[in-house]
């Protein structure tokens, strides 16, 4: 055991969920269905302490996220603190509400990068998805200001049945706005998106077409726009690597200070999450039960246990394994080697054919498109 722990590399990324408050109500939001309240949010001093600890632990990138992170009145102070301790800051924002007025202050505080969510290529589709009239237009104004301030801009679009026809428009929009990167991220079905799966799932044909559009654009726009594509699990043969491996690269701090191995980890019952009020980040990383639960390969069952890909994809997503097979330690059913793989295929087929459009829009507030799971660095 201690060997395993000694071999644990330091984390490279920290997702700081500063608040779950958000002016938008996207149906695919990956925030937990139980949103945390404002009264439970960490104060400025605690965030600054955590961020100093993160830098000392080896974290390089901090993703300032939510909800809408600019809903926090101390967002500039938190950003400035990150810059002071040498952390690279990525603001993950909806671009609506207070975001625009705070942008200049954030740039001055040393913000490194802005990731702006967009719901579709055109305003009417986009606003109906976000459930806020005028949101798309506000985002465009925000995006132009980002580029004017010489900050690198990434657009992030979560793709689902309601906007999958919009992929080429999204690419054109990214070029037009002067974005350097575009993330075309097919919905990952956790949190709100899992609840709304039947209304969100696109068909296989639509998925294939959208991927072809991206591949063609990538070639044409090389050197101008980088397009990162997150393909949908439900139509895959192999799972995505779980964010570089559970407890290997990333940590996620919730608005109230719970530290999670991933943003969806609370869907797994019986995991104990430690809170920054009780432990240092280093202790939590090395010793907390939640981080140890699925770290490495010891916990694996067959077919993962003896699979040659086990240190490549780490058995896929624990949250998806739980949601679909009832066992968080089983092989992610997105993998064609999983005995439950037929299940995910069938779900994709039935859901995408269903006429369900009754979508549960998230309350009481926030939206988030997180860094797509299994994402970088």
């Amino acid at each position: 055991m201690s060997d395993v722990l000694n071999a644990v590399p330091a984390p490279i990324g920290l997702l700081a969920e500063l608040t779950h408050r958000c002016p938008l109500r996207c149906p695919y939001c990956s925030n937990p269905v139980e949103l945390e309240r404002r009264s439970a949010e960490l104060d400025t001093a605690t965030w600054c302490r955590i961020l100093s600890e993160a830098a000392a632990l080896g974290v390089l990138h901090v993703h300032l996220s939510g909800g809408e992170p600019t809903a926090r009145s101390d967002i500039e102070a938190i950003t400035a603190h990150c810059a002071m301790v040498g952390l690279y800051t990525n603001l993950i924002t909806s671009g609506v509400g207070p975001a625009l007025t705070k942008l200049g202050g954030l740039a001055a505080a040393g913000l490194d990068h802005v990731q702006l969510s967009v719901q579709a290529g055109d305003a009417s589709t986009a606003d109906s998805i976000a459930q806020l009239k005028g949101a798309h237009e506000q985002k465009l104004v925000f995006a132009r200001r980002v580029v004017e301030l010489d900050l690198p801009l990434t657009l992030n679009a979560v793709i689902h049945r309601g906007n999958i026809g919009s992929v080429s428009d999204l690419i054109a929009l990214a070029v037009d706005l002067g974005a350097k990167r575009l993330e075309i991220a097919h919905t990952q079905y956790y949190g709100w998106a899992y609840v709304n799966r039947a209304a969100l799932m696109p068909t296989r044909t639509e998925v294939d077409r959208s991927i072809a559009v991206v591949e063609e654009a990538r070639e044409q726009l090389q050197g101008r726009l980088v397009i990162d594509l997150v393909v949908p699990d439900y139509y895959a043969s192999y799972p995505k690597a779980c964010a570089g491996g559970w407890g290997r690269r990333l940590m996620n701090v919730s608005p109230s200070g719970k530290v999670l191995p991933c943003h969806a980890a609370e869907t797994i019952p019986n995991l104990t999450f430690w809170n920054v009020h009780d432990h240092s980040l280093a202790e939590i990383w090395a010793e907390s039960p939640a981080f140890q639960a699925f770290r490495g390969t010891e916990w694996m069952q067959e077919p993962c246990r003896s699979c040659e890909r086990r240190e490549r994809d780490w058995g896929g997503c624990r949250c998806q394994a739980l949601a679909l097979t009832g066992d968080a330690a089983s092989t992610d059913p997105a993998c064609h080697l999983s005995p439950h793989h037929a299940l995910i295929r069938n779900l994709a087929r039935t859901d995408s054919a269903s006429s369900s459009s009754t979508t549960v829009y998230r309350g009481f507030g926030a939206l988030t498109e997180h860094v797509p799971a299994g994402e970088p660095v």
Partner: protein
Amino acid sequence: MMTALSAGSVPHLPRGVRLHHDRIRNTHVLLAPERAFDLDDIALEVLRLVDGQRSIREIAGALAARYDAEQDVIEADVIDMLNGLANRRIVGATPLEPDRKP
């Protein structure tokens, strides 16, 4: 469309891209949006000379002198390396065709 740097191009690191000394892992990394690159000694030397002032020819010249190596060979390697980064929009340069938007 590929971006094509030449010996006369003047590369720079745009805002949001920076060198960082990672004391924990005892290495230098290039931090960029959603990416971090581990740098070997050569890559680090090259990027340290990328300042928005020197041309690639001058960068290669400085390295050739320091390592007592052929200017041509080094120049080609530097162009290769920086082209890779420019294509991913991590390095900017003037003059550089596709970046000059109307």
